């Protein structure tokens, strides 16, 4: 079950240490220590050798107008190794939230909202829409799988829980804009860790965000709005309870998007 309080430091929590050993074994590259002794910058470079270090959370633009994120090594709920940019971001349409399995704060409500939103998205889940949850507390894959089973998410299409080194998760969180100088060292604290959900359509470089504590329909809507207006998944239950009185333009033909001129 998911009752362990993992907000305490690892050194002070022998039980958590044992439970995380599986993750650590996956994360520690030969000769590199995860806990101390190795600077953040060094490890970021180790994990992202293909992206120049431009500072915490930095991304860069490719010639095709898409963003390139650092390609951090992460592990999913089944212990499979994945790369952040290549496997989770590139070409994907996704919603990403942050939390950890033992959170007794806002995670439960956010997870429930995400679950309800995924139910509204129905057949769009898995292809093309994916939901990610990034662990803020070095949860082990087995912990995450247990939490997913507890919530009835495990095995559902499109869902992935992800864990990795604190530095990788911090960089991912910052690259999604969930950063606050005053809260930086407290993201493991359920009282303050981010409740925002990041939405992205990587190919179109469309990005938005909404609070995870709001109406689940707003989360589903935010996903739908990432798609071109003529190719949006039809999602029942997210309708606006009003009327905008808009009418079709007679004889309208869609224009092509403009491109920049130097």
């Amino acid at each position: 079950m998911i009752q362990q309080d993992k907000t305490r430091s690892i050194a002070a929590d022998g039980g958590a240490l044992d439970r995380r050993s599986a993750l650590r074994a996956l994360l520690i590259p030969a000769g590199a220590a995860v806990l101390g002794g190795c600077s953040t910058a060094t490890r970021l470079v180790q994990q992202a050798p293909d992206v120049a270090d431009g500072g915490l959370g930095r991304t860069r633009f490719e010639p095709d107008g898409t963003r390139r994120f650092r390609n951090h090594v992460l592990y999913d709920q089944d212990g499979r190794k994945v790369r952040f940019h290549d496997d989770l971001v590139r070409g994907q349409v996704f919603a990403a939230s942050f939390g950890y399995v033992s959170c007794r704060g806002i995670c439960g409500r956010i997870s429930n909202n995400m679950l309800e939103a995924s139910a509204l998205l129905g057949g769009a889940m898995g292809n093309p829409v994916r939901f990610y949850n990034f662990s803020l507390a070095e949860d082990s894959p087995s912990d995450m799988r247990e939490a997913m089973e507890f919530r009835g998410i495990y095995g559902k299409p499109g869902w992935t829980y992800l864990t990795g080194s604190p530095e990788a998760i911090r960089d991912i969180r910052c690259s999604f804009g969930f950063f606050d100088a005053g809260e930086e060292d407290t993201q493991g604290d359920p009282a303050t860790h981010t409740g925002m959900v990041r939405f992205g359509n990587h190919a179109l470089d469309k990005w938005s965000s909404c609070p995870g504590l709001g109406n689940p329909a707003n989360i589903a809507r935010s996903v739908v709005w990432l798609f071109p207006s003529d190719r949006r998944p039809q999602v029942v239950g997210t309708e606006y309870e009003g009327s905008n009185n808009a009418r079709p333009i007679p004889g309208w033909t869609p224009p092509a998007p403009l491109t920049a001129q130097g």
Partner: protein
Amino acid sequence: MKISSADGFGHPAMSRRRFVGGTALATGAFAIISRSARAQVTPGIGVDFNSPATTPWVWPLAFARHAVPLPAWKRLDPLPIPAAHQRYDEFAPVKFYDMTVSECLSRPHPQLAASPATAYQGSVPGVTFMGRYGEPVLCRVRNHLPASMQGFGSSDIITHVHNGHHASESDGWPGDWYGPGQFKDHHWPHIYAGGDWREAKGTLWYHDHRMDYTAQNTYRGLAGFFLLFDHLDSGDENDPSLDAFRLPSGVPDGSRWRGCYDIPLVFTDRRYDPNGQLVMDVMNMDGHLGDKYLVNGRVQPYFEVERRKYRFRLLDGGPSRYYLFAMSNGMSFQHIANDGNLLPNPIETDHVDLGVAERADIVVDFSQVPEGVNELYFVNRLLQVSGEKPTDTILPLAESGQLLKFIIRPETGVPDNSQVPSSLRPLPEMNTPVVRTRDFRFNRRNGMWTVNGNVFDHNRTDVTFKRGTAEIWRISSSGGWAHPVHMHMEENRILTYNRKPVDSGILNCRKDVFNLYPGDEMELYVRFRDWLGRYAMHCHNTVHEDHAMMVRIDVVP
């Protein structure tokens, strides 16, 4: 009311600020603004987001064209549906506009690229609406955008007239957005709130309000001026009517700006990639800051003025920057309107303090500039290094950000018949009985912008307000963030600011944006009259607004 000493601030918020002397700070607009960009910690921003260098004062100030109504013989096709609007027949439109929202290329400076922009009627900023009280208008807004545009911006739109006293269905409620291939009719009846001429509004603006994408869409170009005139503020400095104010007049219409002395100026800040294309830090939750100052869509333009009075309508077009405007020589001017509403009496000052979406009308008399001085700058003295709020630092004039260069031409010989009357528009009485008091705390929780702990849901009513009644609303900002709070449909009055009564000065006026600095609290006298339906109150740092810092108000019979 001048920033000549640290004591005499007119704006209460100014008292917390400090002046910076000496040369500790970098000099010149570019140095300061690029310094700001470096100092700012902006995770999620691309590594190449510092704009290319641009030479200032290369291009002249540009002006949007006036919106042109349909000729009398032409009808909208299909015809408007009167039943879709409140009180349509009572305020039957006498002018019809057919406006298209489409993509266009916008070049802000010769050293920058022509970037795709979203434009009202092909113009960035959008075409200028010239309205008159008593002349109701219907405006059709067609969405001719492509189904998707690469990068920031949504193809869905909904047009809001900021400070418009309009029925909900024409107000631009954020949930009323519509996609490409559709149009929506907006009925703008141009009536005084409560039928009271003292409620006249003058400098309004219109912009996109698409839920969750307002910052992106306005940044991409969807904003323009919307001016209203009446028998007093008649837009004619030679008006023979004894009632008319005869303020400096003549609003530029595209390239026709000679002989125009009523000048709308929208101030925005933008960022460009190494290729000179417009970019936006869409990942930043606090707010987006540009590293280039733009006026009316151009980076640091110049403007030729005559030695006479000018009315400037200043608008902080956001998305997140605050300004403290001043003339580079420290000269004073007349502050005549706050949020576009003429004050009871003009206030002489040497600075104007604006938060996002706030407006100020000022009259600058260039005939007071000493002979031989032919160049002046309009500057921003406020240092801001993050999107969430400005710093407390007021820069010395010589080190302030230069926004606009005035080139003062020799006398033209045309007499300046304009004036600034000592009495302008009196304030209406606050004589509607107050039926209740409400509190609204603008805060942050777990990295989420909240109002009273809640996040926006367009299907949830947060406030039910009985039309024609009055309430006291206490609005406050907790934590370390500033929030320019905007209310739709009606403008309201500040009763107290940080528990001190407001009965004089620049805040003793009608306002639609209430600029809360960290820890601030205001008590407002709030009325909603004439119209029913859904309205919004939200933070107008549009980045906060898009992340659900909004309240739904349902005005009911």
